[in-house]
């Protein structure tokens, strides 16, 4: 398990050993942090514990152990009256538009206006225009993509310092996703801001994340800088003979030799693809994507 460090900058989210037990599932000692200026991608299979972690950080569930902190305040206080001031600065988007369906887009804005002292109606109107969202349409009549755009427009219109997005780009077409990613880049470019973004669409994280945290069966599996994965690592596409040669060469320590067998060969996780290319020029070694790294880490074997 690898962990990137966020100690150098101001930490906006800190999960310290988050533990929560349910029948058939447990969140077990989840620990990571999101620092100022970062976009952290939170990945994992369905039911791995991403949404539970986000709920725990937002103080929506009571923990059995550990502690979460958002903007320097204990997550447990967020559900209390004194937590309201903190929640003013947190924009949240869940995987569906979480509003009663009969509300019109303009009424959703009214709900936010009632809830957030910092609500910026002009900014919201501007996002409506940018996303081509009709103000008189009911939430139930919006497509999934339009609903997600509305949720994002709301989250970005109350001066949030921190965005917590749970599958926010799901259901968006590729062009809309790019548009949303641009918005998130603009958001995080302002000082003092950060984004925690859970997603199944790892290509989005390839484009925007600074760091990737992976959870599986309630445990953090890795927490790495994206550049470390995508710029430095590689996937060696081996035949069996190549694989044995790599294992024998000790360029990758045997305990760290992660591989995934396919019908047509073996993929090997290469920690430094440039050094690997020098040593094994005959073995094709592709740039690692987050998807490749996830597959190798979660499904791969260790020799």
């Amino acid at each position: 398990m690898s962990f990137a460090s966020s100690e150098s900058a101001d930490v906006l989210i800190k999960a310290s050993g988050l533990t929560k037990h349910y029948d058939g599932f447990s969140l077990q000692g989840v620990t990571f942090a999101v620092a100022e200026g970062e976009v952290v991608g939170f990945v994992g299979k369905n039911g791995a514990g991403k949404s539970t972690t986000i709920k725990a950080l937002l103080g929506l569930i009571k923990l059995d152990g550990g502690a979460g902190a958002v903007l320097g305040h204990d997550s447990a206080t967020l559900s209390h009256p004194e937590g309201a001031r903190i929640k003013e600065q947190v924009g949240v988007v869940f995987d569906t538009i979480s509003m009663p369906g009969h509300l019109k887009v303009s009424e959703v804005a009214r709900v936010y206006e009632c809830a957030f002292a910092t609500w910026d109606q002009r900014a919201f109107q501007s996002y409506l225009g940018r996303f081509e969202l009709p103000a008189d349409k009911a939430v139930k009549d919006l497509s999934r993509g339009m609903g997600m755009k509305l949720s994002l427009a709301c989250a970005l219109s109350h001066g949030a310092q921190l965005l917590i997005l749970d599958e926010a780009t799901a259901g968006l077409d590729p062009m809309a996703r790019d548009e949303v990613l641009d918005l998130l880049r603009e958001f995080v470019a302002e000082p003092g801001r950060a984004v925690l973004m859970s997603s199944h669409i790892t290509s989005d994280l390839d484009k925007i994340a600074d760091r990737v945290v992976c959870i599986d069966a309630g445990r953090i599996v890795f927490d790495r800088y994206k550049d470390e994965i995508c710029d430095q690592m590689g996937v060696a596409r081996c035949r069996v003979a190549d694989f044995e040669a790599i294992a024998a060469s000790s360029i990758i320590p045997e305990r760290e030799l992660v591989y995934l067998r396919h019908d047509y060969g073996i993929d090997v996780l290469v920690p430094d693809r440039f050094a690997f290319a020098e040593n094994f020029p005959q073995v094709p070694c592709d740039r690692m994507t987050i998807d490749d790294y996830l597959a190798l880490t979660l499904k791969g074997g260790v020799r």
Partner: protein
Amino acid sequence: MKRAFLIEMTVLKSYVRQLVGLGFFVSIFVSIGMQRIVSVPGVLTMMMFMMGSMSAAAYDEQSGWGLFRLTMPVSRRDVVLARYGVILSLGVVGALVGLVAVAVLTVAATAVELPAGLSAALAFSPENMQATLFASMFCMAMGSTISSIVTPIYFRLGQTKATQYIPMIVLLIFIVPFLVLGGTGVLDAGSVHLEGIMRVLAEVLAFIETPAGVAAFSGAALVFVLAVLGISATVSLKLYESREL
């Protein structure tokens, strides 16, 4: 709490408009049946209390709204207190809209001769006014009692699950006391002075038919409404604080 109240009112606004319309529709048929319009504010009050608490709980479950609301700058305590504030406000709005409607109809019937003897039926009389006020306050007490029973259950179980249990719980609350009284023999001849109770009851009812009686009943009903909603809110606070959403 103000934020949570305003959020709730925004969510319920369009439904309340429909409910007032539906309330008048029901009131027309009740009034035709009774040949009097004294029940209009009562019908509206009762509907607002009951449907308000039920529909607010139903909206909580739509698209995870109840959970998402807690990501906004409101606490669980705010949500519960706002819910009771909304229920009470809707009940009072129902009573006021009903009373205004009755007043308008009465004035219209006095000013213009309406066909089919309607002017006579709608004409102002002190008895009608007393009866209207009594019916309104009685319905307010009944509506708030029902809301006070169902709302903590909604907060604990959520609307979908609560719907399975509420009929049984209401049945137990209203039937069990009578079963206990019957089963323990408390009502057997000699055990309780039923005649005395009936006499006191008759005196109370006769007093309520007087203007002073209606005023006293209205005051008592208001105190009862606030007390029963207050107790219910205290229970709901405890239940909602510990609920896993």
